[in-house]
């Protein structure tokens, strides 16, 4: 038995979405169809459990595109291990959220 946390289906979906390249909250919402009140708290819990980590986009990039900077999320190594375990638990996860072309961060 591995020591990774066992995720709920919703949390696993969000983790899969981040791994698939949906790297900010709104894109995860759009991909999973979950409301903001579910996605953002879940992402904070995932970050608290060190399955994902966040970082702010450089201000210069946002300024160049005339928009506010975004907060991006990325899977940690523990998050990848946990996602592998979740995929075994939820076999349809990869089919629900296929890999997405990673946006340049």
């Amino acid at each position, binding site marked *: 038995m591995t020591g990774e946390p066992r995720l709920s289906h919703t949390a696993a979906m969000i983790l899969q979405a981040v791994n698939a390249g949906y790297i*900010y*909250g*709104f894109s995860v*919402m*759009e991909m999973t169809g979950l*409301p*903001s*009140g*579910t*996605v*953002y*708290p879940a992402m*904070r*819990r995932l970050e*608290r459990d060190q399955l994902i980590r966040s970082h702010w986009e450089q201000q210069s990039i946002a300024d160049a595109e005339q*928009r*506010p*900077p*975004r*907060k991006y999320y990325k899977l940690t190594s523990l998050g990848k291990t946990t996602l592998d375990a979740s995929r075994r638990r939820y076999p349809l996860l990869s089919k629900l959220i296929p890999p997405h072309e990673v946006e340049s961060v």
Partner: protein
Amino acid sequence: MNLAGIFFRAFNLTLLRLAASLIPRRQRAEWLKEWQSELWHVRQACSMECGTRRQTEQKIAAFCFGAFQDAFSLRQYLRTGVPSGQYLASAVQCILFLVVLATAAYCLAMFLPGVRAAVQPSPYRDTQNLMLITHVGFDGTSYPTIRAEQFRAWQSRKQHLFSAFAFYQPAAKSVMIAPHHSAELSIAQSSRNLFDLLGLPIHMMPSDQALHSNMPGLVITDEMQQRYFGGDKNISGRTIEVGSRRVEIIGVIPARLWTLPGKIDAWLLEPDEAATAIPSSSRGFLVGHLGPSFDHDQRSDHWDMSVPAGPGEVDYLTCDSLSGRARKPFSIFFFTVILALLALPATTALPLGEYAATHHKRSYSKRFRRWLFLAGKIVLILPIVYFGSLDLGHLSASMNPATSEYIQIVSSFTICLFALRWTLRDQRSRCPVCLGRLTNPARVGHPSRTFLAWNGTELICAGGHGLLHVPEMPTSWFSTQRWLYLDPSWEVLFPDAPLTSPSIP
């Protein structure tokens, strides 16, 4: 952008700001920044989609409402994870709690008639020269001790000490309010000069207007007027029967102005100065007015004297000034506070335990704030003790004055002692930097190894300002509790607590 667009943007931003108010201040800025950024992108994405304006704004509003769930979730986590905010607010909460207690004690005091009468200034005139005379051992009680014949004898004799006497004798009497309507009331049969001597500001009917000048006059309380005469303002001049005597109502007095012994509904003022209608053996209360020859510097508010009571007999009397009686509740409070201060060292250690184990100087503002907090607690405790003990002493209106006094003495001393004890212990168990309560007590060391290492209890400041070491057994090298200040390198253990410049209100 049209007016509706501006309105919806302002509405969405307001929602986010409202949700942000749930987030602790330290995390709020970043949290709001993320949501505002996401909102911008959501608006961009929605505006590109096909749909009516209403659908678009509904979608954006639904997104913004989700911020509340996120805020609640984060707030809950921060509360259960690290008690951030709590340690900062606990000092203010403590002061607020004491303020609420003091206010409640004061409000209850104003609600209870007994306390209201005890704390108000004396309604009588020249209280320093007015003395309540009782037999020795009965002062402060509501037992009548002076016989009417003694009053008459002293009144007729030339006095060196007193210039005038007034006498009243309370008794339950049947009062015929109206035909076929009688009530059992407490009527004080009194000498006619009682109210003149006391200087009570009551509106009496002038004697020349009295319809029956030979009839005894009756002064009733406003409560009796309200209860039995329906608040009739023209009650003066009405005649009623008290016992078997016909009397004429000549005035009304507010019940709260009567603070002398006895719960009285009406005063039956005898027409003659000597009140000969009062039976000689009846016992009542005597009020004397000191003459101008009396030297106040040589006597206190309370003194005993002996008077000849007949051939070979002597009466021992106590004279209690009405000004002293009015000050009595505060005198009791003051006395018990002094007693409690004397007894305090027997119940807890007096030092506040802010001895640093390492060389660490706190700023003057932090030291001042700590002392201010201690002073604030003590200042708030005093009215709680004063009004709280008076409330307990006068909870029941039928309570004997002597019993009330005993209850006030005991409760005032007890509350004051334990409140001061709590104040010191509470102060010692707070962080000197942020005034937050220390938490997580942990036993350190073994009693058997006292000579090798310290053993005792270690407490920690949840704000990460330091550790408090309290020795189990004071030794020559570890006699008092010590405070170990933590430097910013410990910050990693307290992710949500700023080690520098805590934002204490």
